[in-house]
């Protein structure tokens, strides 16, 4: 059974169909990239998968259960328990240090544990910067903190919307390496990107156009690097 299945979902804003009858499946442990021009509905889809929005039509099955009709409170619980989020704009709490930002995620999930949070920072190579505020970190470093924050609760599914959009080559590689590690550990990854290189790191690429799935590309080179 697929971890995630979208069945004929549409998201309609007045006249505009941000998503138009989209159906996709993502298997457990799979690494999927989503590409498409601006306005094609990538973020809209991520919001729905991330339980932050509901589709106008269609069903969202997560672990086999339809969550598309669940109330917001249940969606919040699901998001907290199963999903890790990484955003293009980094989105850190500006007045909390790096380690505290990681701990915020633990705080909402279960118990804050500074040691574990420091280990997560270690993993993204930022243990030394644990006590720094976001303003004192570079964009790449902030994004790495966000990755640490997304993986701290060991989510089944990590959703990343343009995680490397604002990063240089070196930081992009660090982040991709982290994704590879997560993938090796069995985490399911859905990564929205404009960057073909990032897409090529995934097993499969889904291309959206005008709110529809235009095509799917399997990456034959996956795992051969």
């Amino acid at each position: 059974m697929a971890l995630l299945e979208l069945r004929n979902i549409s998201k309609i804003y007045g006249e505009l169909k941000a998503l138009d009858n989209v159906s996709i499946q993502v298997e457990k442990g799979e690494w999927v990239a989503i590409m498409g021009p601006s306005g094609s509905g990538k973020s809209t889809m991520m919001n729905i998968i991330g339980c932050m929005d509901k589709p106008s039509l269609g069903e969202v099955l997560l672990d086999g259960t339809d969550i598309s009709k669940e109330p917001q409170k249940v969606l919040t619980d699901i998001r907290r328990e199963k999903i890790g989020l990484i955003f293009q704009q980094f989105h850190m709490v500006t007045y909390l240090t790096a380690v505290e930002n990681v701990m915020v995620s633990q705080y909402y999930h279960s118990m804050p544990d500074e040691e574990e949070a420091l280990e997560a920072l270690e993993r993204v190579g930022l243990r030394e910067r644990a006590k720094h505020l976001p303003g004192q970190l570079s964009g790449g470093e902030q994004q790495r903190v966000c990755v640490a924050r997304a993986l701290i609760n060991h989510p089944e599914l990590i959703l990343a919307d343009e995680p490397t959009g604002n990063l240089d080559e070196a930081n992009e590689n660090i982040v991709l390496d982290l994704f590879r590690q997560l993938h090796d550990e069995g985490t399911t990854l859905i990564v929205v990107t404009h960057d073909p290189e990032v897409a090529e790191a995934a097993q499969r690429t889904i291309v959206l156009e005008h709110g529809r799935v235009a095509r799917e590309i399997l990456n034959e080179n996956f795992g051969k690097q």
Partner: protein
Amino acid sequence: MTKRKMFFRMITASLLRRRSRMLIALLSIAVGATILSGLVTIYYDVPRQMGAQFRSYGANMILLPGEEKPLTMERLQEALKNIPEEEVVGATPYRYVRLDMPSRQQSFISAGTDFEEVQKTSPYFSVEGEYPENTREILVGKEIAETLGLKERSSVELSYKTTAFPAGTDPGDIQAGKVLSGSAEGFNKVLLSADIVLDEEGKIDSIAVDAAYQTPGVGSQVGTDQAFLDQFIGKKPPFSLNTPDSEGTQQEENTEGVDAVSGATISSQAVVDAVNSAVFGSSEGGVIVENTEHFTVSGILSTGGEEEAYIYMSLKDLQRLTADETLDVAELSVSAGADELDNYSRAITDSELDISSRLVKRVTRSEASVLGKLQALVFLVTAVVLLLTMICVCTTMLAVVSERRREIGLRKALGASDSSIRKEFLGEGLLLGGLGGVLGAILGFVFAQVVSINVFGSSITFQPLLLPATILVSMAIAAASCQFPIKRAVAIDPAIVLKGE
């Protein structure tokens, strides 16, 4: 780390690291709390303050000697036992006598009193210079000071004379053989003088009267009428003129009577006075006990009332000068309601002390009505200030929420439930309220103190209970003002974080 610890770490970090906006909220709460605690302090202190204020219009209870026994300090203390000690603001004894100032040939009403108490019962006394602290220091009324040209540190001589006829006094012992002169005013205030010599026993040995300037042929006879003058010889002063009336001739006690020269009563009286004066140094009949001391003016008293024509000295000084320990009156300032005052007054009058007590009604009655109005005013101002504080905190927190939209969205995206968001904002609000409350309680005390000193002229005591009360109230206000902003925060859509706004 526990969840609670992380919670506090987050909300304190929010306050400490995002200073500017939170500082405004903190400041508005602190200002509100300051005014609140300050006004409440004054509100509760007003009755006391106003009581003191009314006391400053003078005493509200007066004790007078009864019918039989004189009033003394001991008996005053005894009477004060009828009033709870803490309600007695002041109890001032007064003894009034007339003192002469020989160098100026004038006399003034002088009061002996307790200056410490005077300052409590008559706070409207305004003294230029100092209240007397040492013995032989006096306060001189402004009127006297102006007519006599007295200033601080001026020295004055005051003397107390009693005209009495103590039996057994024998001036002759000391004055025998000497020519003693005395003078007195005769007809038309023309002076007449008498020279006398006393013998060993103090009796008149010889007498010569110069009455040349009295009415010729009438008054002047007293100097030449040997029969008149002979009445003095061999007798012991003091003398007095016999006053004929229907029951025969009368004469004053303890004196030798002398018949007037017919048709020259006034001049005859003048001769008697002059002789007495020659012997005793006074124009009045009787033995003059004169006690003179030097005093230093320590201050000039202005009251706008009759007190400006008085001289004030310590009761001890006056008692020494007059050799008399009685009091004329005691003025009490009692901090109690009209009914209680009535009870105290009746208790004193009804006691065995033989002291009569009276209330100064005018002062006690107006007190209650003014107090009521003042407290209502303070209450109103407090309510308005609290409302303004709430509006200010509410708008500030709204601004904070919209400033932190992304952060709130992020927290929600990370799995924060609505109730966590609510809890966090409420926590920040309560923390702000608590801090503002502490600040406000302290500043409020300072504020109340300043107001009290400037408006009422007296300081207030710190109410320890007001500290937790102020903190609680400002926390409640902060929490209440945060309710609407929290609603806004909870309504924020987590999806905004993915839209990259």
